[in-house]
């Protein structure tokens, strides 16, 4: 066995990980491999549990003796907490405890002393916690707590927050990290001097809320000194690490379970303050504690896609060749969120020698921002791909041709060749599916105008070690795949079953998959960065391969046949050369009894010689009613290079879902904040408008599958995030083609489109903003 160091990326952040290499690595699958289960549309393994209501989500966990817990939260975006009186609440029968800053230090963990603060910095920050025997009592108790606040002026606009003389929200100041994050290659001054044409625009994007249908929540219970946590998460190990470090207990004393989870989209990685506090209260009271956020809390305190203000300048030659890009972004990170990278597409998407990006992460009196499906890339690609479209108009050039003109075969930052890139084919397939023509036939009928738009997308490769799997032959001759990864609705269970079935040689109906439980101690990374399949999938294949070798070894000794002459087809073992049937797996396990055959697998290292990315070409056909400003997406075509597609059925579901979230982001979604009070106006699903079924017309998903022998032993790259990336710019570009008007500010609500068509884009309500 060899231990090697390898680079693993997560959404553009790279670190070194160790990987074990044992023996020869399996050569990657490709379209040319003779595959019988992989590449076929297979219904979800757990679909029956989901359609019968028997799938148990975190919300469905009700433990014996469990208490209900909930926070009282600040209604103000910025205020001093002057006085808290809990006496009326504690007097209610059934209230077991009320914790505030005045008594949290009685909890048996150090973190609790500083959990509540004297000055709340965003609407929804915790002020008190109640634990009670049922939820009706909980409501009564929360209402009975009296809090006296002194309101302070909130800062919610990041541009105001950056100004001199603004209130400081943090010791460091209001600029996260104290200085802008700058990336530079080449010389943009030189590039712009050389440019024959330049485009400069300002684009604004809104804060978008995940609104996973299962709100954040946990049910926690102590067994002795061991903590069991049922939680809705994208990362069982992330929750375990987070809890262990805050509570100061060993990570292997914490078991995190998330068998089924109702959506995350980037918002569910760490334990969350609710889980940490629930664990402390459960320890103190000696009872399990359940904390499930309600929909309003979900909208106020679980984070959001960052609001941004971006200024982008592009310089090009008359033939369309890009010579310089300068991309600056102000990113509203809330009180202490994460600075995403909207500059990423400017660095990565096209061949361009001179690029500079500047990121200003700015603090405000809003909840900390968090990851949301392709964070940064979605916001930045809206700006870049809208500007590229404007460049095409300025050049009098087909926008699709302009994109192909600046096609690159190498990663622009490192100079490394791509491990595979099928974007050129994706452009061709997409253009055919949407019926792309240049110049366009813009169709008009009364007040309705129809046209098409295009955008490209690039996304990071998220696969890598460490990720481990075990595959066992069960007592019934079936295959049990054991991992500790998560299935967050993407179809991970099903894809892993397909991989194991393919490698081992049996029907997918004979594969069981377990996941979402840290107690196996088979580490898997969190389900994010579109890296789940490319991380755990190769480990599962290797484990199935090793289980197969062990099976051959056993059969060879039992039946006195050479092990190299054995193969397994549809659950039966044959002699390879003669085709003679040896025995079925069921017959084998009947002979073996409870003797167990198993194989282990680990994700191998990433290549150092190539750079990996996934790509997409996205096309929209829209209809704009110029009298009302209403936009309808008639058709959306999304063509992906995500490497090999394991399951075309669930793959298309991922694409459709991403496109639909992109349509919501582009047309209707946005957190509205009242400028003077800093409070959120629409923290619910009545006023925050996610797409509904009637908003969705035709979505055509397709893929190209370039062989990728370098990326992992499956040849897969990832599909979770790419489908959302180019949706907003494709719609913006289609609207531009239809109406002649460039929209700069997301979302394109009817009000905004109407005003923009009248040349009054800046004239919108001033009292609130997205």
């Amino acid at each position, binding site marked *: 066995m060899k231990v090697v160091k390898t680079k693993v990326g997560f959404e553009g952040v790279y670190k070194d990980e160790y990987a074990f290499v044992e023996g020869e690595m399996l050569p990657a699958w490709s379209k040319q491999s003779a595959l019988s289960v992989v590449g076929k549309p297979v219904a979800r393994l757990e679909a029956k549990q989901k359609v019968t209501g028997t799938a148990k989500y975190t919300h469905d966990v009700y433990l014996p003796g469990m208490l209900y817990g909930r926070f009282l939260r600040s209604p103000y975006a910025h205020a001093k907490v002057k006085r808290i009186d809990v006496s009326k609440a504690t007097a209610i029968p059934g209230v077991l405890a009320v914790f505030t800053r005045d008594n949290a230090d009685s909890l048996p963990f150090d973190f609790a002393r500083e959990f509540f603060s004297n000055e709340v910095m965003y609407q929804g920050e915790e002020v008190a916690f109640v634990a009670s025997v049922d939820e009706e009592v909980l409501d009564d108790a929360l209402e009975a707590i009296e809090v006296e606040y002194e309101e302070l002026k909130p800062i919610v606009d990041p541009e105001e927050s950056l100004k001199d003389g603004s209130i400081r929200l943090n010791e460091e100041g209001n600029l996260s990290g104290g200085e802008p994050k700058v990336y530079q290659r080449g010389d943009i001054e030189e590039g712009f001097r050389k440019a024959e044409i330049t485009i400069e625009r300002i684009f604004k994007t809104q804060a978008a809320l995940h609104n996973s*249908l299962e709100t954040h929540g946990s049910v926690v219970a102590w067994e002795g000194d061991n903590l069991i946590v049922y939680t809705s998460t994208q990362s069982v190990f992330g929750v375990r690490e987070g809890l262990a470090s805050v509570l100061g207990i060993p990570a292997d004393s914490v078991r995190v379970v998330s068998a*089924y989870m109702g959506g995350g989209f980037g918002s569910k990685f760490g334990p969350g303050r609710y889980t940490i506090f629930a664990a402390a209260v459960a320890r103190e009271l000696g009872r399990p504690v359940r904390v499930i956020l309600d*929909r309003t809390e979900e909208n106020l305190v679980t984070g959001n896609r960052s609001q941004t203000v971006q200024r982008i300048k592009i310089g090009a030659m008359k033939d369309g060749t890009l010579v310089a890009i300068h991309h600056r972004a102000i990113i509203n990170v809330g009180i202490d969120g994460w600075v995403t990278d909207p500059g990423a597409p400017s660095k990565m998407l096209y061949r361009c020698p001179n690029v500079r990006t500047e990121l200003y992460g700015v603090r405000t009196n809003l909840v900390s921002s968090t990851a949301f499906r392709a964070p940064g890339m979605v916001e930045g690609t809206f700006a870049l791909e809208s500007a590229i479209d404007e460049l095409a108009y300025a050049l009098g050039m087909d926008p699709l041709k302009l994109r192909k003109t600046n096609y690159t075969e190498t990663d622009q930052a490192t100079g490394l060749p791509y491990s595979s890139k099928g974007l050129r084919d994706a452009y061709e397939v997409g253009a055919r599916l949407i019926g792309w023509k240049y110049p366009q036939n813009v169709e008009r009928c009364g007040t309705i105008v129809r046209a098409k738009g295009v955008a490209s997308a690039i996304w990071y490769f998220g696969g890598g070690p460490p990720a481990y799997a075990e595959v066992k032959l069960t007592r019934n001759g079936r295959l049990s795949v054991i991992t500790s990864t998560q299935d967050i609705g*993407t179809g991970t269970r099903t894809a892993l079953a397909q991989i194991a079935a393919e490698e081992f040689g049996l029907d997918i109906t004979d594969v069981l998959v377990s996941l979402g439980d840290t107690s196996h101690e088979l580490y898997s990374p969190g389900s994010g960065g579109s890296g789940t399949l490319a991380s755990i999938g190769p480990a599962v294949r290797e484990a199935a391969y090793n289980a197969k070798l062990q099976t051959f070894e056993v059969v060879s000794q039992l039946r006195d046949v050479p092990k190299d002459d054995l193969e397994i087809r549809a659950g039966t073992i044959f002699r390879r050369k003669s085709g003679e049937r040896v025995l079925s797996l069921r017959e084998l396990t009947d002979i073996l009894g409870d003797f167990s055959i198993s194989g282990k697998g680990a994700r191998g290292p990433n290549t150092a010689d190539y750079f990996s990315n996934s790509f997409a070409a996205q096309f929209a056909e829209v209809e704009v009613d110029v009298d009302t400003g209403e936009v309808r997406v008639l058709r959306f075509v999304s063509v992906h290079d995500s490497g090999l597609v394991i399951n075309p059925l669930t793959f298309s579901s991922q694409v459709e879902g991403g496109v639909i979230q992109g349509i919501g982001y582009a047309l209707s979604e946005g957190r509205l904040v009242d400028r003077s009070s800093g409070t959120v106006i629409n923290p*619910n699903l009545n006023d925050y408008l996610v797409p509904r079924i009637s908003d*969705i017309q035709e979505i055509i998903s397709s893929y190209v599958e370039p062989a990728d022998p370098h990326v992992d032993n499956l040849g897969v790259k990832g599909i979770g995030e790419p489908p959302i990336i180019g949706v907003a710019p494709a719609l913006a570009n289609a609207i531009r083609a239809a109406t002649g008007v460039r929209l700069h500010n997301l979302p394109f609500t009817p009000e905004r489109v109407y005003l923009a068509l009248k040349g009054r884009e800046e004239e919108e309500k001033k009292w609130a903003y997205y």
Partner: protein
Amino acid sequence: MRKFLPVRLNVNGRSYSLFVDPRTTLLELLRKDLGLTGAKKGCDLGNCGACTVMVDGRTRLSCLTLALSLEGKDVLTVEGLSKGGRLDPVQEAFIRNDALQCGFCTPGQIMSAKFLLTINPHPSLAEIKRFMNGNICRCGAYPKILAAVSEASGGVQV
């Protein structure tokens, strides 16, 4: 002092007699008193449709229905839709078409679809969209939900 009032109702063909806090919704009663966790609490405000069940043969948002208002009523939840492991054609169509991702909204979607097909056995795509508009799917399984309901309408007997 809190008061608990009696209510007697039928759920999935079984009768129950309980004492409840008058504020208790049908959703809470199903999930906490009866252990039927198929109906989900997505918003508790009647916006998302994840809690959809049937009361006397018509869909109801169980989060907006007080348990006490159900005296003598018949409630059907997703758990009551399949019998002895045999699935309803709507459930089968959802599986075949992959009309679900995380699955959290699925029980509500299925109950809405089931009711639609009882009042309109062969709906047009536009009718399906209009009727299913109260059920949010944040994962965006809509194209496949549309396909599943449409496919199931072929198999449902009038």
